[in-house]
């Protein structure tokens, strides 16, 4: 078997390489966002010019809308919305235009747009920079929502997102930005949208993890093994469309479910997974579903307090021990 080529990349470098490969492959791909010439896309300026790399003014709603308009008329833009808390400024163009234009025009239009945005939590940025608003977009029909948890998936899913004909919200977890691993080069690394990944097989409890919860879920699984508990860890990777089958099959095997999701608990991704499993696989459950989420309170500046809000090995272990 021929070994495919790889390169060691951090999660953030993998995103830059995905953009480079897609821009090389398809001249319709452009990148726009605030200060991209300095942050995030510096190395791309060596290869591409300002025709396809657009530093934008501080106009989040409109530059996302410009991306939508360009997507409607022949380009495949990647719009870097920098920090997920800025999505609220752009929510009109994302929700009322990008998500609805294909539907409202009876499928005359398509919107091949990628909005990259980072969940900037656990970094002492306080309440206006630290949100993880996956549920807002999960609740919007017409959007695909991705949240990769390692460099390989970040690269492969971003490449798939650029090639998709629908609008995609791509959440980058800054707690993972620096984590390095060997990442496939080129199209070998494409990761399909809509497929969860079974990171660790197990038979006693299912832990579904979203984005930056994954390192904590894996650590918890290692600790549980020492207690003779065999945890299956699933990395959701794609929030919409959700891979229900992988989750339901796992719960059918383990009979119990813990979901680690750093969005606020009310109406969270974890809530949706719990609802789906309750509706469609209730008979598989031996114990109540447990959600490890951020509580329904804003993110504080205090680092001592902030870290307690999010998923950790200890919080996941506590949830597992409640039911196993």
């Amino acid at each position, binding site marked *: 078997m021929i070994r495919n080529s790889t390169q060691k990349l951090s999660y953030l470098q993998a995103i830059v390489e995905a953009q480079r490969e897609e821009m090389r492959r398809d001249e319709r791909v452009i990148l726009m966002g605030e200060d991209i010439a300095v942050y995030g896309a510096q190395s791309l300026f060596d290869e591409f010019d300002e025709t396809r790399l657009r530093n934008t003014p501080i106009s989040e709603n*409109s530059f996302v809308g410009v991306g939508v*308009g360009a997507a409607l008329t022949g*380009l495949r833009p990647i719009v870097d919305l920098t920090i997920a808390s800025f999505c609220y400024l752009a929510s009109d163009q994302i929700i009322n235009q990008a998500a609805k234009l294909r539907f409202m025009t009876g499928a005359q239009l398509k919107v091949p747009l990628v909005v990259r945005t980072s969940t900037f939590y656990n970094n002492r940025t306080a309440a206006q920079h630290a949100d993880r608003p996956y549920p807002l977009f999960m609740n919007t029909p017409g959007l695909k929502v991705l949240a990769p948890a390692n460099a390989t998936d970040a690269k492969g899913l971003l490449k798939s997102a650029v090639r998709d004909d*629908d609008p995609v919200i791509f959440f980058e977890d800054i707690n993972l930005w620096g984590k390095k691993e060997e990442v496939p080069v080129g199209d070998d690394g494409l990761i399909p949208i809509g497929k969860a990944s079974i990171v660790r097989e197990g038979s006693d409890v299912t832990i579904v993890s979203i984005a930056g919860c994954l390192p904590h879920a894996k650590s918890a699984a290692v600790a549980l093994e020492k207690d003779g508990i065999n945890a299956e860890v699933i990395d959701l990777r794609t929030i919409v469309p959700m891979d229900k089958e992988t989750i339901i099959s796992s719960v059918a095997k383990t009979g119990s479910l813990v979901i680690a999701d750093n969005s606020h608990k009310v109406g969270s991704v974890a809530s949706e997974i719990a609802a789906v499993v309750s509706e469609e696989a209730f008979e598989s459950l031996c114990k109540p579903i447990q959600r490890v989420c951020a509580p329904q309170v804003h993110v504080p500046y205090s680092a001592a307090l902030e870290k307690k809000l999010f998923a950790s090995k200890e919080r996941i272990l506590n949830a597992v021990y409640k039911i196993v």
Partner: protein
Amino acid sequence: MQLDRDQQLKLFTRMLRIRKFEEALIAHNPVGHLSIGQEGTIAGACMALRDDDFVTGTHRSHGHPIGKGADINPLMAEIFGKRTGICKGLGGSMHLTDTSMGLIGESAIVGGGLPLATGAGLSIQVRGADQVSLCFFGDGATNQGTFGESVNMAAIWKLPVIYFCENNGYAVTTSVEKSHGQPDIYRRADGYGIPGVVVDGQDAEAVHAVTLEAVNRARSGEGPTLIEAKTYRFDEHSNRLAIPIEYRSKEEVEHYRNERDPITLYRNVLLSRDLRVDVERIEEQVNNAVDEAVEFAKQSPEPEMSDLWDCLFSNPIAPAGDKGLPE
């Protein structure tokens, strides 16, 4: 550049089609935001465009596709909510978008189309095409953030966009004078370093002339222009909206209806050019076409529930929990 005889008759045809289309709506299906009174503004601007130029519009959407030359049968069927509608009955009166005529969305969020038209301009520039993008918006939209944000981006990147304000004097019931610190909308262009021009929107040929100048400027790479066409809406904001106050005087409305009707004004111009035979032929043709469109719409089938999901995503997927139809 002067319109030749055929173009003059085409302009009159498009104006009249908007008028008769909406009069048929009043008679048969009284929904929506009517463009009656604004036909010269819309058709005059569209006559300066090529078929492959892009247009974005507003909740007052009927005039834009008709002005651009679209077939009216699918437009009428859309407002009747039928499956043969241009948007399969999923968009309706505020969203009459015919992409075959270059329309890329009629936004019912005021100001929502400004970034889209700007993005179409970006796309044209990146692709190296010689198209232009024209954005219709109302006076009310100039008070949205998207106006300043979009015009600014088009200015710094010299995008081929025409920002075309249909200033009908009122944002629902609030007048321009009461909602703008400085009521000359075209003067806002100066704040972004682009040309701004004002034109009598009831004079269709004057609208065409200023739009063509802006289109030529955009097509030759010189960047965006802001046009303010002063026009007037003869009917209320929406057919379905009861307005409990008198926010504009009856005399004002009557003045525009009697003295400033763009169709009467342009008809008289054409008659003065000895085109009576053509004008009367067009009037008969438009009446017949509208009657046919109403019949087409009435006889068309309703959409299917499955159309909702078929139109949601490009590649079929089954998102969690919502592929199933309601029971």
